């Protein structure tokens, strides 16, 4: 879709300003029902668009993403723009600098329509935990768009944005992409700089694109990836044009299906997945069974490592330097009396009233698991099991090039269906979580739709690749897309 719009711009069929205005008109029309956006950036978007039009008028060449409007998840900082991570504790926070990915996108001439809704601090799989209200799935407004990048996925699916950025710590790009019928890519850990993204779990977080097509994801990935001095965990890698790898060919590629992964899935979801496997066979890929014996521990490993890192990363929200500061004093029960209650009150009350229940739950869990006496039993043990899971993947990738799984065990569920028991929600991430734990790249692509209660719903499949092998997952995803004639629903 990006390429078509790019061609329209350079052929003078439409101006960048007209394109941006078209998207804002659609947002005005649809977003009261969908609620994908927390903050709109009309003034600056039109300024960005005007600059692109000036370049085109002057006969200058423009890049592929130049003038193309997108949405940015609200945990990524754009200088001068509100960034809340969907939390009341950052309700008044205006980011003082650009995230590195934003710098790259600005240099590429992209247009930012606004900041997209999400689960608070990226904690959730449905966007129901947003501090500002849930986003709705454009395919069925009674269902969740997924999370935590629900706003980003819904915006792309409803044509309120051409492309979007999300973040993925346990599946937060891929799962909403699957629920909303769009493409979502989590790059290899270290591929994309995390500088300027509000951190959740630093050893798991990655920023990535959510788009209509695989080619669009490749275009955005090419712009946002690369080594960054400001992120010590970003890998030595040079800018690459990922669209060059979209050959449409998968003959000879070895694709692994994980033993046991399809047990316990509904017939509908299984059928959708098996059609995808069949398509890859037709295209000439070799399908093999692989084993990931320790992958079944991915969820508990994640639900220790992630809260531990969260408890550290969210310690900075203390009402001191920025964000909400609770000024009313209320009694709290502590098992020790700190020397100066007044300063402590600032922390206790700010965090008590500023954080929603899910961040608090995870901070508490992490604090417990890291506390003296428990560190070895929980955090250290989880990191060792993490090594075992990584070794499983190393072994599997010596036998196959890619691993193919459903993205989610079900299509989009209804609002309220999973909120009573936190663990029910956590189980939604069963297929996506492993890629974050071992750091491999993974993409979710729309597969054959699944029927639930007489309604057809999107269902994504996931391709995981070797470390830093985004080329092959993009290539295979693209090959499926063009051969299955899947064109985005307008």
């Amino acid at each position, binding site marked *: 879709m990006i390429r078509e719009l790019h061609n329209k711009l350079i052929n003078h069929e439409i101006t960048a300003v007209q394109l941006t205005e078209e998207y804002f008109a659609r947002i005005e029309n649809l977003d009261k029902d969908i609620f994908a956006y927390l903050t709109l950036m009309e003034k600056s978007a039109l300024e960005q668009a005007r600059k692109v039009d000036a370049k085109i008028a002057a006969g200058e060449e423009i890049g592929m993403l130049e003038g193309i409007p997108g949405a940015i998840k609200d945990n990524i900082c754009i200088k001068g723009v509100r960034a809340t991570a969907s939390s009341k504790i950052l309700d008044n926070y205006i980011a003082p600098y650009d995230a590195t990915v934003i710098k790259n996108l600005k240099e590429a001439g992209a247009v930012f329509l606004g900041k997209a809704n999400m689960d608070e601090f990226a904690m959730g799989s449905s966007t129901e935990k947003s501090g500002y209200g849930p986003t709705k799935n454009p395919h069925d407004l009674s269902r969740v768009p997924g999370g935590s990048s629900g706003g980003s996925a819904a915006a792309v699916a409803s044509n309120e944005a051409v492309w979007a950025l999300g973040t993925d710590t346990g599946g937060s790009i891929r799962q909403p992409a699957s629920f909303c019928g769009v493409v979502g890519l989590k790059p290899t850990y270290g591929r994309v700089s995390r500088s300027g993204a509000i951190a959740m779990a630093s050893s798991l977080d990655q920023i990535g694109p959510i788009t209509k097509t695989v080619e669009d994801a490749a275009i955005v990935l090419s712009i946002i990836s690369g080594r960054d001095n400001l992120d010590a965990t970003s890998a030595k890698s040079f800018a690459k044009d990922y669209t060059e790898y979209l050959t449409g060919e998968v003959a000879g590629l070895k694709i692994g299906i994980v033993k046991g992964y399809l047990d316990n899935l509904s017939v509908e979801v299984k059928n959708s997945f098996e059609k995808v496997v069949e398509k890859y066979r037709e295209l000439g890929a070799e399908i093999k069974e692989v084993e990931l014996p320790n992958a079944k521990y991915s969820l508990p490993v994640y639900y220790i490592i992630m809260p531990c890192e969260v408890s550290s990363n969210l310690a900075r929200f203390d009402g001191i330097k920025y964000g909400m500061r609770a000024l009313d004093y209320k009694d709290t029960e502590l098992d020790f009396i700190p020397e*100066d209650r007044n300063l402590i009150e600032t922390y206790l009350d700010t965090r008590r009233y500023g954080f929603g229940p899910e961040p608090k739950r995870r901070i508490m869990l992490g604090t417990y698991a890291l506390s003296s006496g428990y560190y070895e039993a929980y955090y250290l043990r989880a990191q060792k099991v993490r090594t075992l899971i990584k070794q499983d993947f190393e072994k599997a990738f010596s036998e196959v090039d890619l691993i193919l799984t459903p993205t989610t065990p079900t299509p989009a569920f209804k609002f309220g269906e999973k909120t009573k028991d936190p663990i029910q929600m956590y189980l939604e991430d069963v297929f996506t979580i492993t890629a974050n734990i071992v750091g491999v790249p993974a993409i979710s692509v729309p597969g054959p739709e699944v029927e639930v209660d007489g309604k057809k719903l999107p269902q994504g499949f996931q391709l995981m690749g070797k470390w830093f092998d985004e080329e092959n997952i993009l290539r295979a995803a693209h090959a499926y897309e063009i051969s299955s004639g899947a064109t985005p629903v307008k």
Partner: protein
Amino acid sequence: MITKEEVRHIAGLARIGVDEKEVEKFAADLSAVLDWIEELKEVDVTGVEPTAHITGMENITKGDIEKDFSNKEGIVKLFPESKDGYDKVKSIL
């Protein structure tokens, strides 16, 4: 599995104010998650090195070069309470 006393202690460490009702809810929620995580105990991790960092990169450094931050006003504007350009906080001493 996790007692209310432990919850109060953790809340104190995490600097999150809690009332009695919340203490009870956390005790229930956290116990449920900790029970679920118990299955990790069955894994044999003898001789396995922990993976703290998945890329295996080490000692990434950059020069200790002084640079002026271009948007100091942006930062000062964020102070919840300020006086004369300083961040005003409760007394520490």
